């Protein structure tokens, strides 16, 4: 069988038309998809950037939160050092006088010692800016 008769008998027209349309449609869809790929890529890259920024922030945050450790401090030792000075100042005293006395005596961590003793209730306010010593 030859010619148009053979083409029709073997379903040639249908195969050719369907095949041509499928490949054309397939590559058109692929072209449409890849024409939008840059948008998807930009979206993914943006997301990746945000994630990497967050990661960096998380990495930096603990570094900022690190507070330098206070020097080793013993409150009993501070109490022992300041008690004789308080005795010199009398029963009630001003903190500034105690500070100056301790500072001039070259005692270590003067400010920290006074603050700690205040917080621990050893140095107690009695009003008018004066304090007393309570063991």
């Amino acid at each position, binding site marked *: 069988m030859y010619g148009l008769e053979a083409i029709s008998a073997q379903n040639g027209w249908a195969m050719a038309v369907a095949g041509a349309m499928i490949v054309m449609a397939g*590559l058109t869809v692929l072209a449409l998809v890849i024409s939008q*790929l840059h948008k998807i890529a930009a979206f993914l890259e943006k997301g990746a950037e945000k994630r990497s920024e967050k990661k960096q922030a998380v990495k930096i945050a603990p570094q900022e939160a690190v507070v330098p450790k206070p020097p080793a401090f013993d409150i009993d030792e501070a109490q022992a050092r300041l008690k004789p000075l308080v005795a010199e100042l009398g029963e009630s005293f001003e903190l500034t006088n105690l500070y100056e006395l301790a500072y001039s005596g070259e005692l270590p961590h003067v400010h920290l010692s006074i603050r700690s003793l205040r917080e621990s209730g050893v140095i107690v306010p009695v009003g008018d800016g004066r304090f007393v010593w309570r063991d």
Partner: protein
Amino acid sequence: MDLLIQFLTNTGYYLMDFRNVIMLLVGSLFLYLAIAKEYEPLLLLPIGFGVLVGNIPFFKGFGLGIYEPNSVLHYLYFGVTTGVYPSIVFLGLGAMTDFSSLLAMPRLMLLGAAAQMGIYFTLISALALGFLPKEAASIAIIGGADGPTSIFLTAKLAPHLIGPVAIAAYSYMALIPIIQPPIMRLLTTQKERRIQMPDMRDVSRTEKLLFPAAGLILCCFLAPASIPLLGTFFFGNLMKESGVVDRLAQTARTAIIDTATIFLGFTVGASTQADVFLTPKSVGIFFLGAIAFSIATASGVLFGKIMNLFMKQKINPLLGAAGVSAVPGSAREVHQVGLKADPTNYLLMHAMACNSSGVIGSAICAGILWSFLV
């Protein structure tokens, strides 16, 4: 004396007939084209030498010929008949191909699709000439101008035609500089050939990474029969673009594809034994192959002109000729013809986009035809 006579009657000189001489001349011509003219030497040299090897007459039954079970050539030919070599070649092609130009200008993909029309026209022509549907499809795929795809489909549909189809496909691919330019010039005006294409945008790495996945899903869902070709093709491309398996990508685009090409070319050449190859059908296949190739070129160019009717930004219709998947031969020819019209018109990158699209298109066509005819 009897022993000597028996030996002499078993020699190739005694067994040779005129058909062997013709095929030896064909093989020599291929070698000449490959070495002296450098026409597709990577393909024509192994095929040409294979033709010489396959056409040395031998005493049948010794287990020597490519069609004789248990012969060495038969085992090497196994990669062709099962479609293994084409699949491996596609892996290497994928690892070589840079889709940047196609991603930057996706509309060029349509030219790759249009150039596949030659396949379907040839399908009808082959049926009209009396070929059976499976044979007609195997011949038609020559229009895709893709050697491995042609061999793959023919191995699946009409294995007895592998030799003529492969030789026709590779011959016409080698003859691109002779076949395509006249068709391009005939169908375009000087003004059209001078159309300059815009510069391409930069393509991000993410786009290049997304493309193999998108391509695989869209193409293989449409034509699952193209998985053996496009599956390895996109896998090879992902290896290249990922940048994390450089060693594998490098091996795929060098050692692996080279090995497959050597055995593919050599065994296809050796499969052209004169008694199998020189038949009226082969003549018909060569005739139809030339038509397929010419129509594919013409339909790409004409589609480019049709696109220009609807688009603001005109495209150079010469690019349509690169829609056949002969990489990079047809892209080179488009570039050359464009340069002749205007020495400042550089079309190579745009033509490569059409070429890449043609590779995908012809593999889809192979899948479609296989699906139609199994």
